[in-house]
């Protein structure tokens, strides 16, 4: 059967040739793609990286009651940024709190930190001074999940968790931060100020 052997030999050689050509083409293509992916890894990855996706800003950044005093007949005055003015004289009634907006591209959780506490901010001892903050929605569903500051809560000067899921959709990305003060009649006169810092992280 020498003819059959020769035929088998031809087939085998053809198989080897095809396999070698296949290997050569594959290696060639791998080399091209590796060169492309090499460039992409060096520069393409950086171009596609998104940094600082969390972004918040105060669109209303000041609450100022102006100048005033505690009514002489009272031991303290209670005022807030929702229009309350009890036993206060001359101060401007404020009906708009701070407004914080999530203008990033991810849902965020945020905390509030005040630069001081009631004793340092307001002072006095006729009654215990208080400095409280509260977070409510400015836009529907802007404070999803848990709101740990849904009612007036004493400012501690440390980071206090607020909303743990505030979206970035333009129709549901703003919350109000209201402030309530109890001012003792013997609080030292002068200009008082406090800074409230909101710190947000993507969730």
């Amino acid at each position, binding site marked *: 059967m020498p003819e059959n052997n020769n035929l088998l030999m031809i087939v085998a050689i053809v198989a080897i040739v095809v396999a*070698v050509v296949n290997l050569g083409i594959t290696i060639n293509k791998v080399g091209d793609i590796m060169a492309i*992916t090499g460039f992409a890894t060096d520069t393409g990855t950086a171009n596609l990286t998104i940094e*600082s996706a*969390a972004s918040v800003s105060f669109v209303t950044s000041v609450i100022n009651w102006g*100048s005033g005093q505690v009514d002489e007949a009272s031991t303290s005055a209670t005022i807030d940024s929702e229009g309350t003015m009890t036993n206060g004289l001359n101060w401007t009634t404020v009906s708009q709190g701070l407004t914080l907006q999530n203008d990033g591209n*991810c849902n965020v959780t945020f905390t509030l930190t005040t630069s001081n506490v009631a004793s340092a901010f307001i002072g006095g001892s006729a009654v215990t001074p208080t400095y409280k903050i509260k977070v409510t929605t400015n836009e529907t569903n802007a404070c999803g999940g848990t709101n740990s500051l849904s009612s007036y809560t004493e400012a501690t000067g440390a980071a206090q968790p607020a909303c743990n899921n505030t979206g970035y959709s333009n129709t549901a990305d703003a919350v109000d931060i209201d*402030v309530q003060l109890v001012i003792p009649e013997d609080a030292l006169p002068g200009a008082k100020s406090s800074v409230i810092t909101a710190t947000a992280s993507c969730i």
Partner: protein
Amino acid sequence: MDKKMITVLLVIAIVISVLSLVVTLSLNTDNMSLRERTTTIIQKPDFSSGQVGITIEPTPENQPTLKNQNA
């Protein structure tokens, strides 16, 4: 050429084909890992600040000297 020689050649052909397959598979793995890297998102916190201000006027109650003067 005997059958043994032909058999050896066929085995070589199979080995080369397997090597080719391995190389092709490794190419697909590279592409997948590249996609994973390019979708990485680096997140860092952001912050903003608001201001609360009030001025307390002097009164006899909060300024003892005025209280004394009034007395």
